[in-house]
């Protein structure tokens, strides 16, 4: 790249700072969590999480409808605090992580609610099945962190039917759906 072009691009970048801010989800320092919960026999909520995932998002306060999110989850990293259950969940009766080691979510649209949140529409690929999902998103906060960076965080929630993703194991009538709760903090790049 020529020096002149570099200077020109740099000038443009400085002139329009927040066109489409790109954030990297802070999984390096674990300020992001993907939890799921499902009813145990209808008596209580059982929580689990995915320990390993990564992703990015774009969010522009001036044009939130252009927001976009991309997340890749290492499904085998699921953790429900019980080795035998985790082993069962990784087996082909549930997530079948040997054949489908990754789950991905790629947004296709965002409908802002005017308060920083909204409905995030996208495609979730889990267990080899790709389906459209809608995630209800609430913006928790944004601003400068104490170490010179800029952060923005959201919480999203959606409900998935196990059968939609090919999981037929009978956990009982009150455990046919699982909720997914995503607590995401991004660091602006």
């Amino acid at each position: 790249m020529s020096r002149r072009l570099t200077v020109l691009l740099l000038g443009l970048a400085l002139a329009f700072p927040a066109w489409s801010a790109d954030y990297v989800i802070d999984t390096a320092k674990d300020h992001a969590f993907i939890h799921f919960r499902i009813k145990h026999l209808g008596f209580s909520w059982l929580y689990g999480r995915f320990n390993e995932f990564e992703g990015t998002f774009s969010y522009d306060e001036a044009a939130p409808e252009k927001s976009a999110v991309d997340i890749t989850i290492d499904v085998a990293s699921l953790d429900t605090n019980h080795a035998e259950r985790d082993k069962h969940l990784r087996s082909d009766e549930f997530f079948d992580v040997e054949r489908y080691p990754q789950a991905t979510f790629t947004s296709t649209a965002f409908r802002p609610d005017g308060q920083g949140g909204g409905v995030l529409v996208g495609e979730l690929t889990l267990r080899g099945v790709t389906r459209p999902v809608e995630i209800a998103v609430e913006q928790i906060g944004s601003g400068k962190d104490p170490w010179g960076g800029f952060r923005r965080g959201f919480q999203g929630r959606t409900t998935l039917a196990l059968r939609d993703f090919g999981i037929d194991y009978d956990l009982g009538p009150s455990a046919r759906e699982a909720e997914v709760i995503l607590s995401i903090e991004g660091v602006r790049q």
Partner: protein
Amino acid sequence: MTMQWKNGKTGYGWFSILLHWAVALLVFGLFGLGLWMVDLGYYDAWYQRAPWWHKGLGVTMLALVLVRLAWRRANPVPRPMAGHAAWEVRLSRAVHRLFYLLLLLLALTGYLMVTAAGDGLEVFDWFVIPATLSDVDGQEDLAGDLHRWLAWTTVGLAGLHAAGALKHHLLDRDATLKRMLRPGPDVT
């Protein structure tokens, strides 16, 4: 007549015989139970109970194996049968050693699988063996796979072991099998 508990020079005593058959019973029982329990549905009454038994009986088997190993040291193994060829003696010794190794590894992999997230291993509501090595990436999956393959290898080897005993009994018509059924008259 007193019971012949200890091994003699050419025959096994009752203690060795009973331990042998107890472990044999446990090996096949645990194998069947293990194969059956992993396919139980969530609403099956045995879903919780079957693994509870498998764990307790597995630890029982380990204890018996350790007693057998100690008994071998305290109380020498009878001489091989006079009619056995050198290769038969070598082969049977290798098989016996392999059995002990397989059974110890089965116990170890079972333990590492159950305790992979830090939970202890429950033995019949009687005591809990605490976790030691846990939270290794993929620990329960690797230990589980090994446990399954070790189990199949063990019952395969047991089949070979039984075929050998039957061969001696039916074809060679020697006392190989009989001396594992009761102490022989030559036990001193």
